[in-house]
């Protein structure tokens, strides 16, 4: 068996890891279950905090794979065999492929907003998710209510499916706060006559230029921020929505009527990740994301020699961190293979 590496998952993490592994002189096969690579980011219009087009980053990541990465899309992995010499991946409708190492980069799924029943997603026509709003931006569509009217008031609800004991997700999804601020600005930019109110618990503006974007949203774009979690959403006869929340800074309950609500859906561990992890004997943490060999010093390797992790399989991560993490994974794979050769 040669020094082949199979990367499972063709999002930003998988593509970056594959490109970096190829740069290190390794033979790389990238497997993607969808019809094209690019993961969630390919569906995103602009990226925080600079609001550069997501396509620019995807083009860069795509080019970084060069010609040294063999890519296969529409791949369903059926099983993975382990041997002393490495791994054999069995797929639907194709011959098995063997490799010395596996990189699991199967990412995450978006929280299913139906589960927050009180917000009425899937029931009330004018409740949408942040991913659906981004799709409207990306396709250059007009932002309208379900019956085609221009919204005059919109609300953005933070932490939908994140930091929420009721749905069983105690973790922070890290990217939603700044995504909400970015999308609030973009709504105001597209519809200057539309008021935007964001309901948040904390605004976790932890990274470079995030806080600046938050200030810009308030000072330049007049976005309202109310610290309080939405308790419920109900529909008026005209299909506008009544929101109930507590403004925890004033300590008073409030009601707000809006034309549309955007739910900032967080990350959840993917079903495909769980399936692949079971095939190779990897454990998940209490949050459902995969466990690395050591959370501080061996975050890219796992308890199974030859199996490595990259990106959001280990928990929510932004693009910057995902790219850095995937490059680190590639170096760890190379080190592992070099050590094997030396032995």
């Amino acid at each position, binding site marked *: 068996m040669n020094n082949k590496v199979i990367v499972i998952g063709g999002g930003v993490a998988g593509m970056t890891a594959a490109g970096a592994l190829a740069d290190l002189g390794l033979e790389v096969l990238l497997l993607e279950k969808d019809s094209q690579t690019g993961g969630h980011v390919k569906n995103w219009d602009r990226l925080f905090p600079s609001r550069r087009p997501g396509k620019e980053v995807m083009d860069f990541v795509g080019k970084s794979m060069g010609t040294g990465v063999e890519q296969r899309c529409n791949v369903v992995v059926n099983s993975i065999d382990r041997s002393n010499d490495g791994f054999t991946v069995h797929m639907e409708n194709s011959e098995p492929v063997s490799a010395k190492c596996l990189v699991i980069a199967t990412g995450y799924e978006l929280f299913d907003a139906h589960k927050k*029943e009180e917000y009425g997603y899937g029931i009330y026509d004018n409740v949408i998710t942040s991913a659906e709003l981004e799709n409207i931006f990306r396709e250059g569509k007009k932002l309208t209510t379900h019956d085609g009217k221009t919204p005059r008031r919109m609300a953005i609800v933070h932490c939908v499916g994140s930091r929420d004991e009721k749905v069983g997700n105690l973790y922070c999804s890290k990217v939603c706060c700044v995504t909400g601020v970015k999308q609030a600005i973009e709504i105001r930019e597209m519809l200057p006559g539309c008021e935007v109110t964001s309901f948040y618990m904390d605004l976790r503006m932890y990274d470079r230029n995030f806080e600046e974007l938050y200030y810009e949203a308030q000072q330049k774009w007049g976005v309202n921020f109310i610290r309080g979690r939405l308790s419920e959403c109900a529909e008026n006869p005209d299909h506008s929505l009544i929101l109930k929340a507590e403004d925890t800074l004033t300590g008073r309950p409030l009601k707000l009527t809006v034309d549309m609500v955007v739910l900032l859906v967080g990350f959840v561990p993917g079903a495909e990740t769980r399936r692949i992890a079971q095939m190779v004997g990897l454990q998940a943490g209490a949050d459902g994301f995969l466990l690395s060999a050591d959370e501080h010093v061996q975050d890219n390797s796992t308890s199974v020699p030859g199996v490595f992790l990259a990106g959001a399989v280990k928990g929510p991560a932004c693009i910057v961190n995902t790219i850095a993490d995937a490059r680190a994974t590639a170096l760890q794979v190379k080190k592992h293979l070099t050590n094997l050769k030396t032995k």
Partner: protein
Amino acid sequence: MKIEGKRNIWKDYQKEIAADRYFYVRSCVRQNFFPGSEKTFLRIMKEELHKDLFENAAHTTCSGIGYHSDVVPFETAMTMVARQFSIMTESGYENFTTSCITSFGLYSEILETWHHFPEVEERVRQHLLKATGRTFNKPVNLSHASDVIFKFRKEIAANGQYKLINKNTGKPLQVVEHIGCHYSRMFPGKGIGGAEYPYVLVGMIEEWGGEVIDYPERRHCCGFGFRQYLIQANRGYSISSTKKKFDSMAPYKPDFILTNCPGCPMFLDRWQYALSEMEGITYGENGHGIPVLTYEELAGMILGYDPWDIGLQVHQVPVEPLLDKIGIPYDTPRKFLTMDGKIMGQPKAPSNLKFYQHE
């Protein structure tokens, strides 16, 4: 609104409801509020559905109202509930059915507590044994009486003489459904349809021909809310809650309101009178208010029971407009006669809320 979205949620909240042999426990307060409801339930279960349903005179309050008003400690409530279970066990039954929503909530809370903390159950067993010498089995199945009517809603429709259709227009009646807080808000999985979009009353309304109204304050309190009524100084909160609900549902022109709690129909019915006296406001058509029914009363109406035999004459808001819409006959002179034909007295006419004159 997409009804399909609600149907998807309803699929996730189904529960097991026993098919027969119920140990039935009455409510402390319902026989004063709407005295025909429990009697109608018994009649439907025995005469229409031919079910084995047993009551035991040794049953007492479950203490739920005291517990939720912070005057009865949980430990005391658990021991009292343990005693009810011992009476069920002694009677040879294992399916426990409550008339009261607060009882149902308390029984659910206690069984859930014992499930997670077996040492608490053991302690309560010791308390009961020392105090009364009794032992008990836990119910195999716990249901609210509205669950049971829901379970047999198709049979009731099949035996029914009337549908929730306006006989003049041929259109379905528009119905507001209001669920008691203690039915599923504490434990969504224990109520049919969950907590946010409960299905238990919706299922009855749909099966019997009506349509359900989804209005913005659907989830809001009926006005009882325990401490907001039981503490006299708080009663402004109680009636303002009720007013908020009526203001919200009024644009949808509901034909009636259906409830499954002892307190909700009481407050939604009586506060309409109080609001009409205080504010001069009446809801519903022609100043008659919006009738408020219990699910047993509605089932009885569908089955063609005489409206005065099921207790509709003790409602503050007259139900005759609704009976006329459906086409259910009633004998006006009999309205205020007791079962043995004596005059029970007639309430004084309110200033604003109209008595109904049959046309």
